[in-house]
């Protein structure tokens, strides 16, 4: 075997990534409350997990929030990317700069900024405050994703369409959207994962009436005594893995 130092280095990094997760998965099947020692295989923690009603409510909340935020962010972000590409307008560079800054600005600052805003306009913290916040932090990522695809467009298509008498709306629905939907979908998916996974911003703008999964996990992890969390982590990890494998299969089918 040649180049074995490199190979063992790579293996080491992969082990660093995966051993903690594997350990978690193994212990989710351990029939014991605290012990590290193996007390036999059991689905006990999964049963507890699946009968935890609060948890399932928070999962539903997160899904509703993620889908709505991703969809609205995809629309606004998509329109923004298209406008930045097609139109010359006053403040174009400012808009680009603002989106760039929004990506770089620390989550925690955005969280407190929105918290101050919502308390000023007396918006009760809950679904709507979370939705507005999530849309706001997703938009820049949609703009960037869609923009990176749109620059490879052939501008002559638009010229040709215009020469043939197509109006803006027709160009949009007949040319831009069909060409752009993979990028829009990628932006949607990214927004959805960002929304489902966000802890920091949600932590500030969530209210007691609308608990979402990441915050529920956070409070469970902080208390951190029940192996139910191990089961929960295993389930989410399994689902993530499944989604990634599915998306890889879908992507690979295309030439």
């Amino acid at each position: 075997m040649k180049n074995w130092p490199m190979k063992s280095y790579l293996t080491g990094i992969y082990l660093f990534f995966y051993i903690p997760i594997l350990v978690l998965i193994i212990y989710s099947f351990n029939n014991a409350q605290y012990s590290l020692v193996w007390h036999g295989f059991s689905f006990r923690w999964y049963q507890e997990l699946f009968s935890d009603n609060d948890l399932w409510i928070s999962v539903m909340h997160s899904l509703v929030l993620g889908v709505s935020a991703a969809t609205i962010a995809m629309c606004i972000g998509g329109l923004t990317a298209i406008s930045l590409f097609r139109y010359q307008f006053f403040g174009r560079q400012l808009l680009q700069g603002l989106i760039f800054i929004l990506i770089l600005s620390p989550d925690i600052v955005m969280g407190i900024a929105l918290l101050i805003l919502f308390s000023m306009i007396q918006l009760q913290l809950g679904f709507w405050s979370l939705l507005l916040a999530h849309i706001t932090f997703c938009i820049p990522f949609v703009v960037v994703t869609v923009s990176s695809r749109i620059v490879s467009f052939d501008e002559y298509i638009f010229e040709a369409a215009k020469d043939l008498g197509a109006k803006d709306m027709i160009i949009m629905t007949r040319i831009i959207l069909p060409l752009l939907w993979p990028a829009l979908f990628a932006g949607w998916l990214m927004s959805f994962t960002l929304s489902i996974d966000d802890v920091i911003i949600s932590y500030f703008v969530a209210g007691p009436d609308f608990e979402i999964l990441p915050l529920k996990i956070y409070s469970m992890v902080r208390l951190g005594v029940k192996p139910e969390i191990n089961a929960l982590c295993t389930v989410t990890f399994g689902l993530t893995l499944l989604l990634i494998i599915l998306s890889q299969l879908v992507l690979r089918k295309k030439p």
Partner: protein
Amino acid sequence: MKHHDAGLKIFSLGVIWLWLIVFALLPFCLVTLASFVSHDNAHLLMLPATLQNYLQLNNSIYVKIFKQSFYIAGMCTLICLLLGYPFAYAIARMKSRYKSLLILFIIIPFWTSSLIRTYSMITMLKPKGIISSILMWTGVISKPLPLLFTDTAVMIGLVYNLLPFMILPLLTNIERLDNRLIDAARDLGANRLTTFRKIILPLTMPGIMSGSILVFLPAMTIFYIPDLLGGSKSILLGNLIQNQFLIAQNWPLGSAISVVFTLLLGILLLIYWRSSRKDTQDLL
């Protein structure tokens, strides 16, 4: 343009500008304003305007937390770079048919909830956890190692969470590297070190930069990692701001900390950006 119908344009631009002004510019202005006012038990924010919040920051505790945060985030970035660069380089230059699979295996932790990965680290690090048990079993140590709730644990947790953010930009950057440049350098008699220093390193600078930014920025503010792994002693900026807002209920002070923090980050990014641009100019 013969018939320019501006409806769509006005609508698109109207929506995005309105959104950004209301939910991005206005809130950030409000934070700045909030940092100049006072508070009492009944009001989160109230007049009179004051500089007190900023003056209060000139206190050894806060200065220490600022320094500590920048230090930990910087160290974390450095460790991620040192671990991630050779890794990304090896993967990017690989000609194996398993290459895309290997890349997929770096993306998977990237897509997994960061809270869950932090929790898995607790299992590894706790006194009777895996690392301690293995070390005791092999006889390296005689009693459980107090790893959890230390700064080391915070560092391990940060690196564990953020390493993929360093590797992925480096990977895309190194993959685009032109092999002919490396061959040319070697043909002209440069040794491995010189080739790396003069050719590979400058050309992968953009990847190093974006990777470092992606690691450094979150490292300062992921408050739940110090919270879960560091215990009560490790307070970083993220925890401090979170504390002022949600526990101490001192919004003006929390805002002042955020403003100073944002300004420092801005200055740092500007210096970084300027210097890296100069590097590439020197190269041309």
